[in-house]
Each structure stands twice: as C-alpha cells, then as structure tokens.
C-alpha cells in the first residue's frame, strides 16, 4: 500500500481507527444487521425481499418507539434503517429518531445519528430545524470531534434559512488552531455560499485569509470558493492573478510537502483547481493572460508522467491555454498535447482528446485537420460514447460545405441508438444549426428523413421528448428573427409545429398560429414555404382565436395568384369553420399512420378512359412531349428558350409520392404554376424530371453506383468519379479499399476548414472538385509528392517560370488548392501545367523523354493527372496541333514568328497564325494568334517591320463591346526597329456568351519623317475559343445540375465512326472541338461539362446531358446564365455537322 494512502488515512479524524486493527470492524453475522443482510442476500425474489423488509421495518418501528431503547441500541437500529432506505424502502418514522440520536448520543452514537440525518434528509426537510440547536452546541464544543462532525453535517444538509444562526460560530472556526477545523469551516462556508450567496458576502475578506493560510489544505479548500466567485465575476478578482500564478508555480515546482503528492505528482487537485481559476481570470483579458503564460508552459512541460492524473492536468492545462488570450507558441504546444490524447490507445484519453478538440475547434477549426483520420476512425468506433463525442466534434466544424455529410452521419447514429437524452440534445441542436446554416443547399432528402425520424417510432416517452424538444426550440426560434432562416428549415418548422405542438400543453395553439402567420407575412418567404405554413395552420386551428386568425389568413391568400396557395387557403378556410369535418380529416391522434398512396393514380382510370373514348389524345410524359416537339421542328435551330422547361414540373406530384416521403409532402408539389424564378429559387426542391427516362442519374449522381456503395436511403454524397480514380497516384491505389473510403469521408467532412474556399465552385479558376482536395498531411499525400516531383524535373525552366510567376500571379493564387508552401518555381510550374492541361486537354502528342523534362503533373486537389510531357527548353516540340483539325500549313514566314512567342505561353495550345491586313502596307505585316490559357484567351498580335527604318509612336488598340480586353504585354510598345518583330499580348474574355464576336483593331504608327498612319484590322472570335473544360465529379455534376435554372434541349446528329460507339465518338468530337470535359459515360447517356471564361477567376458553367435516342443525340443543356446554352448549342451543332 502506498505511503500516500497511509498518510491519507492517518489524517482521517482518528475515530476511524477506533477499531484497533483494520478489518476488525467487520460485523459478526450474528448481529441483527448481519442477520438482516444475510437474510436478504439469500432471498430469491423481489416479493420475498419486500416481505422481509416490511417485517424488519415493523420491528424497527416498535423498537424506536419503546422508551427502553438505549442510545446504543438506537445506533444499531439506525444503521439498519439506513440499510432499508438504501434498498429503497422508506423508513420515515426513524428520521426523528436520527435527529434525537445526534442530539443525545455520545460521540460514536452522535456520529451515526448525523450520518443518518445526512442520508435521510434534504435541505428542505422541516425536521432539520430540530437539528439547528444540536449543531450549534456541537460547534461550540471543546471536543474536536464534535466540532468536526457538526461542520461535516452542516456542509451536507443544512436549512438555508437557519444559516444566520450558526454563521458567526462557523466564521469563528476560520481562525481555529487546528487546520482540520479551519478546512472544514472553509468548506462549510463554501456550501453556504452555494445555497445562499448573500449571507456570506460580508466575510469575503476572511476567505482571503483562508487563501493565505499557512496550511496548504486550508488554502486548497478556499480555492473552491474562489473558483466559484471568479467564475461569477472575474473582473473583481483580477488582482488575485499574481497570487494564483505564484501558487501554481510553487505547486508545479514541487515546493509543497511531499505528502501532497499523489502517485508522485505534486498536488494534482490543487493544480487543476488553479488552472481552472486562471482560465476564468485570463479569459478575454490579454494583460492578465500574459501574467500566466510562463506558469502554463511550465505545467504543460512538467506533466510528463504516464499516469491518468498527469493527463487530467494536461487536459485542464490545454483547456486553460485555449481559454485565455491566445499565445501562438503555447497554442502550438497545447495542440501537440491534444494530439497525444487523440492518438492514445487508451480509450479514456482518446475520449478526452476528442473533447479537447471539440473545445478548441471553436476557436480554430483547422486544429481538427491533423486528426482527420483518427476522427473518421472514431466515427465508427464500437463504443457509442466515442461515436457520440465525435459527432459532437463534427457538429462544431459544420459548415455549408460539409453539412450534408455530417447530417448523414448524425442520422445514421440516430437510427442505431436507442433514444436518450443526450442523443436528443445533440441531434436537436445539430439539426437546428444544420438547417439554419445550410438549409437551402441541402438535398431534399435530409429534411425529409429528419421529419420521418420524428414521425416514426412508437409513441414512447423518448419520442415525445424529442418532439417536444423540437417544438420548443422551433417556437423560440420563430419568436426571434426569422428572416435569415432558410426556406427549407422554415418548412420543417411548420410541419413539426403543425404535427406536434399539441404536445406542448402550456402553449395554446393561438400563439403558434400567430408565429406562423408572421412567417406568412414575411416578404422573403417563398410560395412553397407558405403552403407548408398554411398546411400547419390547418392542423392547428382548433380554438376560436386560431379560427379567427385562420379566417384572416384565408381571406388574404384565397385570392393568391398561386393555385397551390389558393387551394391550401381554401382548405384552411373550410376546415377551420367545420370542426367536425376537421376532426375527421385531421384526427389529433394517429396522424402518423401510414397513408396508402395510390401513386399510379388508378382511381382516375375511369376518367381517363372516358376521356380517351371521347377522343382525347393519350397522355404523354413531358419529356416525350418535348422530344416530339423537337422532332417536329427539326429544322428550327432557334430554340424556344425558357418557357419550355417550366411546363415540366407537372409530374412532380407523382414523383414525390412514389418516394414515399413525409406525409405532408403530399400536396407540396412545387410550383405547379411556377415561373422561372420560382424554379430557380426552389433550387434542389424541384426534382429532376426524368420520368420516361431510366433513372440513371439521381440527385447526387449516378444511382446504380450509389446503391452499390451503400444501401442507406440517403447515399453518401461524395463518390469517386470513375474517371478520376485511375489517375490517382499509385501510393493511393495501393491502400486498402476501406481506407480510401475513409479518406474520402475525411475530405468531405473537413472540406472548407482550411483555406476558406468559396462555396461557389465556379467562381474559381481551378474548378477542382472540392471534396477531393486533401490538406497536405505529413508530406505523404500524393499531391505534394507530385508537386515536388514536378519542381524537380523542371529546374531547367526555372528562369522562364519566374517570369511567368509574375505574369500570372492571379492564376497562381487561384490554382493553389491544398498545398500552400511552394517555391515560386513550383508554383509557376504548376500554373503552367494547369494551363497546359486545361487549355488543351485534347493534346495527345506523347513526346516522352524529349530533352530534360520529366513528367509534369497537374495538381488538382487530390487528383494528379499525368500529362504528356512538354519541355519548356525546346520550343519546337511545342507545336501542338491547333484546336482546328486542319493541319497547320505553316508558311515559312510563320516559323520565325512563333519564336517570338513569349516563353511562358509557348507551352500552351494555340491557333495558327492569321495574317491581318498585310496588303495595306507591304512594309508592315500584322498577324494574330490565339493562345488558350486556362483562365483567359490571349490574343497575340505580331507586328513585323519589313523596312530598315524604325517605326515610332506605335499604339495598338483593340475594341469590342462584347469582350473584356486587357493588355498584358510588359512594356507598352513604343517603337519597332527595322526588320524586327514586336508582339502585343491581350487577354480577352467574354462579357456575355455570344456565338461569335468581331474584335476591331487599330494600329497607329509613324514612320521617320512621315505622317502618322493607321492600320485597321478585324479578328473574329467565336464562343468556342472561350470555352474551357470543367472538371467536376459525377456527384458534383448532379448537384450543379439541380441548381441551374436555364435549360435547353435539342436533338443533334450522331457521329458514326467504325471503331467507336456512336455516343463516345460524338462526345469525343465535341470534346476535341469545343474543349468540353466528359464527366462520365454510362450506357446510352453521357454527361459533359464546360465553363465559359468570364472575368478573372470567374466562369460560367454549362452542363450537357446527352442521350442517344432513335439515332439522334438528345442534348439537354443547363446553365445559370440564359445565353450560354443557346450559343453553345450552336457550336455543338456546327461541330457535329463539320465532322
């Protein structure tokens, strides 16, 4: 047995050692208590136990009532009574006798009496008043043990109102010569402070004395009070900081007597208490915090033993460091320390590590990043507690980008746990934050699943509690500012309130009705939300107040232009007036019974056949209609524009019903009478209308694929794109499959934590799929390996690259995804790679091993694409085929000109040289060339002076109102010497998508001794020069597709070749001519994505969905801008006709 225990024991008031040897106090089984206990343990049934205890209690009752019972016997009886109470049987008749025993007994008996009192009674018990005098007497006793016992019982149970009676005596004990008395007095005062703070206010100065007590035990006890005081008003105790820091310094430095050690750790309880106090003192106070940095660092450093207690100190230390005003160096150490927790194989430490992370990510979400993989593992931990804690952590790092994945995880967790308080709490707050954070970007499945979760399940207490929780939190949300809440969240709120607000008894439905009515009146509430709200009101209008309110609402909305709203308002009107009907339609209970929905609408069969018999045309699905329409007008190249897609939504009702989602969705078909803006507002809510088409493409990508990954109703959002995965670096493909899944999960969970990427994928020059972007982790990620590779292999090009890095700074910034620390060479190198690959993805010329170049790679998030080798050192090898299929019949004169191409552009795809207006003035030759950079089109104008004389005052002006033109040549050209060539560079992007634009140019110059002259020229640029591939994954494509509102359909001719599928051949043709990116091809369908350059770092996406149908290619284009599908379709047609 350790010394510590020995010492601890010796300090227990020595009464315990009354029994001269350890263990001697064991009762002989022959005693009455012994018999009772033995009797009970031998019983087999609860019933028998009950009988025995009843008998026992009766005996006790009789004995205590007898005047002949001595105090000694009473003590023994009291122990038995305590035992019966512990078994759960009331022995209230003995309470008064316990007090009597405390009053009248001698020390040992008194002790049992006090114990019984403290176990039997509550602070509120009136019996306690009888104890006050006894306590007072004992406090004043000269016997140390009496005083100790009195102080002990006072700290446990004492009536609040009677505190003043004994307070002076207890205060007096603060100066008692025995430290054990002083300590107990301090703790008693602490207790008083907790239950009646006002009454001990006047003795604060005495607390201070206790803090300075020469006995560390008393000082430690006073810290309980100070912790409480400082927690309540840190401002008033800032002056104590120095003392606390000093004390902690001494404790940590081992200055306290050895017997304060616990397993050779110096006074751990004291350390932790001090650390907590420091946290409160230093919170949001830089000056105070600075005082404690040193000692905090010291405790962090000294706590090195591998013992639970050390970890307890470390944990508290980390918490303090993250609470006080931050100091970078300390934070770093603390974060390191958290790492030790998280990575520990001990489950308790892992748990605390997660807790610490949860705490610190509130300050800096990036701190979770190094532990991604551990967190993912913990998410699947067999211990539900660890799992829960992980979810709590995830909840803290929820942002708009990972919200979907996190909610999936939450729901998964919910499904498998039995409901309990913590789950409700966690899920409740998560769902609230999730909805308010990302409501509008969420997939419709998520709120639906959430509602189903609320609705499902037997009507157990937990279910009720969860629903009540939801109702309560929503009501308080609605009472606040609601304008910012996402529409989808408002819809969920309406439904929940409609269904469950009856659970909240104290709340009359009128209040909720008023809240809902306020929602209706809000201007930014969408039509769909309004109809949800009206639905909820219909369920609620039970009392007269609500009915009046409902009538009011009805009047306003029955005249609405929106038919859905009008219908809802009518329903509300009728149901609110006819209570009987309402009770039948919407029974208060049993709303949750599953409704049988006839999704085939078979009850309409009769009607349909009648109509058919009467000569009506058979029903055609909207898609079919669309195609018919397109075929009829095969020659019309002008599309019908935006009015067509809107009519599609009529099928959404059936669509929803077959999904079998929440009952109230029944009538929630969006925008039957919707217009274009309505549709775009609804975003994800308008489901993809593809009936008639095999459902290959779901809301989140390719459906078949999802099912294979997971059978859950809501499949994971992030899927590996089949096109991308083979290109992953070998180091990744070798890792086992589950690991990869985890990594993907990690990347989708931790997205948006590092550099704050904008939500809009399109707004960036580098459209890397965000969930594939991994943060650099320990240099092991494929991406960073590759990047070092490429920088190594391209040393020879360093000079050029440096130039380029200046020139293309903006691109560099934009293209920097995960890796942040790169040398300029690396950076520019990478930029170059990007440009090359994105500008000319069709370049196939594999020229490996030419000169010094190694393989260059494209770093795009997690995907490294190995490109055909280009070498910057040898410009000749860079003559890629131009985007036009015509072989570059370069005139001899061209060759010298291309050598004037700036080095940084020489690696990019470019068009052949076009001569411009050379016949105007033979001595001056102008030619132009387009270079396809990733984020812009560069137009180069070569000015060749064929004479001996120098040209002066050169100025080149390019104008076009549809284009945005900016000059990028380093020095504005002033003069061109004889027989030399000068190049002007302009970046050009389109302001609006248009099929073709004319660029007007004017070159003014002056010959020596001549008049100023000017040469005019024009250059036509087509949309396809501004189109760049858009690299997205299938999953992202699915999401984007839903969010774009402008669409267009057209049938195009299929390209047929001998050795390729018609679809593949056609898409390849489009890809090579229009720089499109083929996202995926599945069966007879293919999806293609591209973007239109626009401004710096901007781009407008356009998605194409192609389907082979009756020997034509049905193309469906979608984009957020109206002009783009139009113009792009023109080029597609042209490209396919030319083939």
């Amino acid at each position, binding site marked *: *047995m350790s010394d*510590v*225990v*020995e*010492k*601890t*024991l*010796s*300090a*227990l008031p*020595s*009464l*315990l050692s*009354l029994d001269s040897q*350890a*263990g001697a*106090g*064991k009762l002989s089984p022959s005693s009455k208590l012994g018999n009772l*206990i033995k009797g009970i343990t031998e019983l087999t049934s609860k019933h028998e136990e009950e009988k025995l205890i009843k008998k026992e209690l009766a005996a006790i009752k009789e004995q205590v009532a007898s005047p002949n019972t001595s105090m*000694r016997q009473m003590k*023994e009886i009291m*122990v038995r009574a*305590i035992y019966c109470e*512990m078994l*759960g049987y*009331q022995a209230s008749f003995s309470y008064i006798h316990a007090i009597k025993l405390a009053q009248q007994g001698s020390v*040992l008996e008194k002790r049992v009496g006090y114990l019984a009192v*403290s*176990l039997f009674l509550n*602070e509120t018990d009136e019996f306690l008043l009888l104890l006050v005098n006894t306590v007072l007497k004992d406090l004043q006793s000269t016997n*140390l*043990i009496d005083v100790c016992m009195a102080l002990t019982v006072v*700290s*446990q*149970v004492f009536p609040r109102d009677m505190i003043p009676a004994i307070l002076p005596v207890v205060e007096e004990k603060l100066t008692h010569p*025995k*430290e*054990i008395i002083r*300590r107990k007095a301090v*703790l008693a005062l*602490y207790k008083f402070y907790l239950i009646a703070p006002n009454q001990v206010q006047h003795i604060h100065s005495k607390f201070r004395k206790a803090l300075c007590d020469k006995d560390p035990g008393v000082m*430690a006890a006073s810290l309980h009070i100070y912790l409480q005081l400082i927690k309540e008003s840190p401002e008033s105790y800032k002056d104590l900081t120095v003392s606390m820091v000093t004390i902690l310094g001494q404790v940590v430095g081992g200055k*306290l007597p050895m*017997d*304060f050690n*616990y397993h050779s750790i110096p*006074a*751990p309880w004291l350390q932790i208490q001090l650390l907590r106090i420091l946290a409160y003192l230093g919170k949001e106070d830089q000056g105070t915090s600075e005082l404690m940095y040193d000692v905090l660092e010291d405790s962090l450093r000294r706590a090195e033993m591998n013992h*639970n*207690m050390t970890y*307890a100190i470390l944990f*508290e230390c980390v918490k303090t460091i993250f609470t006080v005003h931050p100091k970078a160096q300390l934070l770093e150490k603390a974060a390191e320390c958290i790492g030790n927790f998280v990575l520990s194989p001990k*489950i*308790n430490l892992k*748990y605390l590590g997660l807790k610490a992370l949860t705490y610190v990510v509130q300050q800096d979400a990036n701190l979770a990043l190094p532990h991604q993989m551990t967190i993912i593992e913990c998410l699947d931990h*067999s*211990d539900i*507690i*660890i799992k829960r804690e992980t979810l709590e952590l995830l909840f803290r790092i929820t942002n708009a980008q990972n919200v979907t994945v996190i909610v999936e995880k939450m729901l998964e967790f919910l499904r498998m746990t039995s409901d309990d308080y*913590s789950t409700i709490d966690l899920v409740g707050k998560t769902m609230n934050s999730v909805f308010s954070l990302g409501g509008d970007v969420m997939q419709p499945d998520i709120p639906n699943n959430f509602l189903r979760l609320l609705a499902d399940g037997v009507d157990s207490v937990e279910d009720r509690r969860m629903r009540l929780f939801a109702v309560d939190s929503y009501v308080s949300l609605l009472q606040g500012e609601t304008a910012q809440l996402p529409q989808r969240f408002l819809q969920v709120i309406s439904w929940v309130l409609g269904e469950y607000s009856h659970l909240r008894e104290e709340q009359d439905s009128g209040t909720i009705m008023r809240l809902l009515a306020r929602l209706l009146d809000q201007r930014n509430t969408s039509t769909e939300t309004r109809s949800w709200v009206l639905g909820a009101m219909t369920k609620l209008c039970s009392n007269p107040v609500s009915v009046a309110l409902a009538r009011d609402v009805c009047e306003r909305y029955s005249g609405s232009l929106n038919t859905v709203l009008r219908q809802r308002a009518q329903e509300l009107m009728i149901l609110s007036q006819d209570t009987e009907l309402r009770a039948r339609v919407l029974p208060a209970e049993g709303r949750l019974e599953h409704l049988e929905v006839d999704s085939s609408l078979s009850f309409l069969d009769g009607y349909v056949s009648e109509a058919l018999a009467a000569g009506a045309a058979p029903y055609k699905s909207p898609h079919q209609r669309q195609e018919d329409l397109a075929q009829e007008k095969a020659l019309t190249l002008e599309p019908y524009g935006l009015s067509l897609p809107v009519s599609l939504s009529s099928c959404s009702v059936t669509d929803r019903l077959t999904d079998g989602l929440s009952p109230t969705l029944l009538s929630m078909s969006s925008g039957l009478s919707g217009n274009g803006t309505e549709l775009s507002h609804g975003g994800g809510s308008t489901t993809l209308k593809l009936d008639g088409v095999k459902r290959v493409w779901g809301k989140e990508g390719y459906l078949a694929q999802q099912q294979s990954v997971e059978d859950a109703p809501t499949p994971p959002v992030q899927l590996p794109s089949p096109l991308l995965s083979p290109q992953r670096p070998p180091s990744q493909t070798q890792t086992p499959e589950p690991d990869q899944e985890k990594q993907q999960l990690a990347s989708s969970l931790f997205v948006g934590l590092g550099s704050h990427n904008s939500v809009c994928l399109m707004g960036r020059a580098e459209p890397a799929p965000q969930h594939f972007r991994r943060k650099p982790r320990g240099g092991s990620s494929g991406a960073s390996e590759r990047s070092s590779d490429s920088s190594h292999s391209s040393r020879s090009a360093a000079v050029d690259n440096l130039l380029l890095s200046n020139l293309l700074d903006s691109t560099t910034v934009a293209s920097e995804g995960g890796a942040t620390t790169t040398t300029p060479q690396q950076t520019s190198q990478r930029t170059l790679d990007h440009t090359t690959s994105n500008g000319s993805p069709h370049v196939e010329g594999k020229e490996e091993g030419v000169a010094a170049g190694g393989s260059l790679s494209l770093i795009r998030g997690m995907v490294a694409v190995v490109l055909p080798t280009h070498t910057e050192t040898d410009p000749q090898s860079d003559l890629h085929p131009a985007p036009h299929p015509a072989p570059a019949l370069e005139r001899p004169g061209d060759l010298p000109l291309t050598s004037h191409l700036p080095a940084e552009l020489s690696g990019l795809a470019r068009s052949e040289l076009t001569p411009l207006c050379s016949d105007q003035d033979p001595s001056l030759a102008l030619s132009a060339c387009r270079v396809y950079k990733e984020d812009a089109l560069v137009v180069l104008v070569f000015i060749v002076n064929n004479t001996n004389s120098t040209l002066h005052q050169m100025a080149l002006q390019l104008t076009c109102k549809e284009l945005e033109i900016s000059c990028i040549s380093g020095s504005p050209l002033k003069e061109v010497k004889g027989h030399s060539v000068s190049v002007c560079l302009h970046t050009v992007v389109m302001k609006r998508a248009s099929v073709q634009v004319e660029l007007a140019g004017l070159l003014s110059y002056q010959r020596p001794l001549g008049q100023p002259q000017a040469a005019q020229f024009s250059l036509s640029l087509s949309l396809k020069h501004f189109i760049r591939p858009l690299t997205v994954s299938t999953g992202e494509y699915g999401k984007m597709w839903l969010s774009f509102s402008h669409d267009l359909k057209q049938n195009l001719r299929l390209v047929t070749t001998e050795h390729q599928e018609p679809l593949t051949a056609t898409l390849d043709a489009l890809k090579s001519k229009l720089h499109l990116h083929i996202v995926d091809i599945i069966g007879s369908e293919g999806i293609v994505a591209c973007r239109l350059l626009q401004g710096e770092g901007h781009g407008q996406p356009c998605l194409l969905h192609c389907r082979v149908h009756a020997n034509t290619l049905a193309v469906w284009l979608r984009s957020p801008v109206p002009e783009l599908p139009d113009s792009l379709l023109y080029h597609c047609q042209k490209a396919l006709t030319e083939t």
Partner: protein
Amino acid sequence: MMRFLLLFSRQGKLRLQKWFTPIPEREKKKIIREMTTMVLARKPRSCNFLHWKDLKIVYKKYASLYFCCGLDAEENELLALEVLHRYVELLDKYFGNVCELDIIFNFEKAYFILDEFLLGGEVQETSKLVVSRSIEASDMLQETMEEYMSKPAF
C-alpha cells in the same frame, strides 16, 4: 462538483449512495435505476465516461463493485476517475484488502471514510498533514477513544 456517488454490485444491488445536492426521493430512485442499467450494459474495456442528461458520469469497476459518480459539466473526468481510485485506496487501507462484503456489512464505515474524503461534493482532503500534526490530533482524541473502547458496541 460531484453530484452523487453510487456503489453497486454486478447484479445492480446498491451498496452505497451519497447525494451531494438535494434531490427528491423519486428522482433518486430513477437515477439509481438508470445508472445501474447504463453502467452495467457497458462492455469491458470501453470508455469510463458517459453522459446522462447534463451530467457527466464517470464509473469504474473494482472487482465485483461498480463505483459511479455524476459530475457537473465543467468537471474533469480523469480527475473524477482518480477520486474514485483514491476512495478505493482509502477503503482498502481501512478494511485491509477490501472486498464487497466489507462494504455490505460495514457500509456506515464506508460512509464515514467518504465524509472525510469528500465534503459537499468537493475533495476535502487532497493531501495529508504533516506527521507531527496528525500525531498531535490523535493524542487529543485518545481520551475519547479509550472511553468508547471500553464499551463494546454490540
């Protein structure tokens, strides 16, 4: 601060209960019931920390006995685990190789030890007094001790 401490057996029989804040009788029974079911359902070698309502639950099994305490949210779980351990050490020292039976038959002694260790839900004794002081204290108690030693309790 600690809200309650419960000792119960593998069969869920309560061996000791200490409540540091006033709690109605019915609520106590509910907590005891929920704690025993919750803790006994835990697999061996899983985490010693649980959540229950707004409390942290820390439990540890010593032989056949479960020690389980409820803490305020801001408390340090590892520290609580050490508090439990300390209490076991104290019991062990007092009873000499303590076993469940010692506590069953002498539960009031276990309460006394606890009252000297924890007071009002806070650790009262973090250290031991210097030897000389504790000798001084026991000297003062000598008289009373002798007085009671002469009268056998049962």
